[in-house]
Structures are given as C-alpha cells and as structure tokens.
C-alpha cells in the first residue's frame, strides 16, 4: 500500500506521521526551514508562497503554542488563516467529524491543520478529502506529532550539526507522548543510533525497544555522556489510574536537576516541547540555564511549520 502522505510521484502532500517517510523528505523539510529562519528578521516577515490559500486550524484539543505557531507560519506564507476551536462549536452539538470537515471543505479550504485526541484522526480526514486538499497532523492522541518531531530534529541539527554519532535521551512519560514517538522515528531515519528512553516502567510503552531505543529506569545511567536531553511533560490529563506515586516523587527520581544534568556532556542541550511543569519534570535552574534551548525550539517551530506547509501545498 502506498504511504497515504505521498502522491503517485512520492511527493509529500499531507504530513500525518514521520514514520515511513524517507530521509530525503525529512532533510528537504529541514533545509527549507533554514531558509525561512531569516524571514523573521526582515521588515516584512512574509513571503507570498501561499497567497490566496486558506488554512483552517482545526483544534479539537486545546493548544496554545502549536496552534499559535501554525497560525504565524501560515500568515508568514501569506495564507488566510481560520482558527476553529471545535470544543465550543458544532461537535458539541453532535455533528460528526467528517461532516464538520465536509462543511469546511465546502468553504473552499485548501489546507487543514488538525489536532485531535483520537489517534488516526488526521489520517481519516486525509483519506476522506479529495486529493487537492492538504492535511497536516498537529497531534493525534498518543500517536504522532510530526511537526514537533521535525522541529526537535531541526533544533538538534542546529546545535549539533549532524545526527550521526549523537547520544539522545528522552526522559519522562514516554507512554503517553506522541512527541517522543515522532522524534524517535525522525532520529532513526536521520541516522542517530544511540537513542535512550528514561522513565519509570509504568510510563514506558511495551515494546518500545523495537523502535531502536534503549530503555533506562535510572537517570544517572541513562544521562551519562548524552549530547541531547529531551524532557517530556508529565501528562496528567492523559493519566488514568495510579501510574505514579506523586509529582514530587517523580521529580526526585526523574526530574532534571543541575546535578543530574552534570552527568551529560558539558555541552549537552536540554529540550522540552512545552508546556513545562517546573519542579515536576524539570528544575527551574535547568529550564532557565545556559544549556536549555527550549525557547529556540519555539522559534524554530515556526520556520519548520512554514516549510511543511509550503512543501505540501506545492504538490
């Protein structure tokens, strides 16, 4: 079966997941993002690539950072952006997802940016729509958050230049994290061989080793000589049942403190997809410290989303 994100020529027409995308496409996105970075420094922070196109931001799940950066990215490409907060609209009146989509398509949308709590929602929408529409997955359930994975990869490449030979540790709630899943797929494809997942057994998905990642339950082992540390948020809203004793207990064992950070390489970078829970997964002095690149991730995220939107729209 053909990858549903690619057209008959193998070109990216939707971005639903990083899994299964060839390295050339990932590299093309990262390279294109590089050329969008400088646009933010100009008088007019816009290029006319998507002039006259309508981008619909469909967020069935709340988000500030992702929705805002997608909106800014679309506007810097000169697209018209419509933001829909579906929690408060038709779905709450009982309309089905695909009926909502059909109505928006009838309003001549060109691109949908979709976040949904159900894994696979963006795939379903992409399959349902005619081929001239484009769908970008902005996070579906526990499954994927491909633009976050790409902006994480962009950040790593920016600071570390190459993916090969790096040691990357992803720490915390791997089980519920679509961010972790997307980043693992991206780094596997881009050639990072030393990938580590650190967290309690209860927050580790079963079979995670099959993704080419080594599992650690001890920070002092897992962080040793790392180049990149990716802290994940403890997702309280996704937690069902007693997976954890308490937030304080978690911080003691898996929170990133200056002492634990010292186990990594001296030039290691600290990343976090946000929103951060200070004092739960990360200590304030680390989050605000010289090794944190958390705010750069946000800035890079705009350029990466511009790259993804302009590439899918051109196919």
């Amino acid at each position: 079966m053909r990858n549903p994100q690619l057209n008959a020529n193998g070109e990216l027409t939707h971005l639903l997941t990083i899994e299964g995308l060839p390295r050339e496409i990932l590299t093309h996105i990262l390279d294109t993002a590089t050329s969008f970075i400088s646009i933010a420094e100009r008088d007019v922070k816009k290029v006319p690539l998507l002039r006259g196109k309508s981008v619909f931001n469909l967020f069935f799940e709340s988000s500030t950072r992702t929705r805002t950066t997608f909106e800014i990215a679309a506007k810097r490409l000169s697209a018209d952006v419509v933001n829909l907060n579906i929690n408060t609209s038709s779905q709450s009146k009982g309309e089905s997802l695909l009926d909502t989509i059909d109505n928006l398509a009838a309003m001549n949308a060109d691109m949908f940016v979709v976040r949904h709590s159900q894994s696979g929602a963006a795939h379903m929408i992409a399959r349902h729509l005619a081929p001239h529409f484009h769908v970008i997955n902005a996070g579906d359930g526990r499954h994927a958050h491909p633009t976050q994975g790409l902006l994480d990869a962009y950040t790593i490449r920016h600071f570390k230049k190459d993916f090969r030979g790096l040691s990357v540790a992803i720490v915390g709630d791997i089980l519920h994290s679509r961010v972790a899943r997307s980043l693992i797929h991206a780094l596997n494809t881009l050639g990072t061989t030393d990938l580590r997942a650190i967290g309690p057994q209860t927050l580790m998905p079963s079979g995670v080793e099959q993704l080419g990642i080594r599992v650690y339950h001890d920070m002092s082992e897992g962080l040793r000589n790392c180049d990149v540390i990716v802290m994940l948020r403890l997702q309280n809203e996704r937690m069902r049942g007693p997976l954890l004793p308490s937030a304080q207990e978690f911080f003691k064992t898996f929170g990133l403190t200056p002492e634990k950070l010292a186990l990594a390489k001296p030039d290691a970078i600290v990343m976090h997809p946000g929103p951060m829970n200070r004092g739960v997964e990360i200590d304030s002095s680390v989050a605000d410290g010289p090794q944190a690149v958390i705010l750069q991730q946000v800035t890079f995220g705009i350029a990466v989303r511009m790259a993804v939107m302009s590439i899918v729209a051109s196919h």
Partner: protein
Amino acid sequence: MSNLPDADTLVAVLVATLRPIVTPETGMIGIVTGGAWLAERLHQELGLKVPLGRLDISFYRDDFSSSGLHASVKPSQVPFSVDDREILLVDDVLYTGRTTRAALNEIFDYGRPKSVRLVVMADRDERQLPIAAQYVGAVIKVPAGKKLQLERDAAGKLSLRLNSPKTANA
C-alpha cells in the same frame, strides 16, 4: 558554443559602465545563482564598500503552484539597510522579466529603496513584462527551447552556455 561572447569581456564592459555611477553608499544584490556570481565579480572589481547581498527568489516565483519548491533553496541575505539606498540588482540573463519582478517584490520586503537599477550580463530581448535593464553586457538572441546560463568552473571562471533544459525555467 564559441559564438557566445566571452563572459570576462562582458564583466569588463559592465565594470566600465558602472564605475562612474557607483558611490560609497551603493548597495548591490545578486540573484542566485548566476546573478550572484556576476555580482561577486562586479562588487569586487568596483571595490564597493557596502557588503554584497544575495536573493534566492524561490519563495516569490509566480510558478510556485505548478513547479513547487526546489530542493536547494538558499536563504536570501541582504546585509545592509535597503531603505533610501540606491540599489543595483544583478542577474546573469534577462529573459521574460519574471525573475526580476519576483526579486523586486522581495527587495521591497526588506525596505523601501531610493532606486533599483537592473544590471545583466546578457539580455535575451524576449520580455513578457514591462521590465528593462539599465546596464547590459550584450544582447544575445537565443533559439527557441534553449536556455542561456552563466556557469562558473572550479577555478571561479565565468562563461556563458547555451543548454537544452529538461524543464523550461524563466
């Protein structure tokens, strides 16, 4: 193609034409790729003080929706303020005028120049838009279906070539 003019001779012609009109404040911007190479030569030989700028107009092309984004877009760099400055825009070959139009749009996103004048090594004289070059190395008629391009070898030597492109590119 030995009947094409020698690129170094055309550079010399342009340098001689431009020398009387450049000032210490003149800004020069080359269009990637061939125009940027030509601009490097002109900038150096004219001894311009303001650092050289380069534009990759891929994000401003009018055929984006049909031809897509090329894999190797290089960031544009204009390392000086264009506001109220006299700008020399440099391209290797002037053909339909569409590249020039896109470059003008991009320049105005950096600011509001006092003037923009166009410098080209070769003018194919087949405009599709009301655009003209003020400084031209040579007018060269090109057979239909052929593409006139500036090339640069490993030693940095410029030469004009007539190619048969796989896809026509303005």
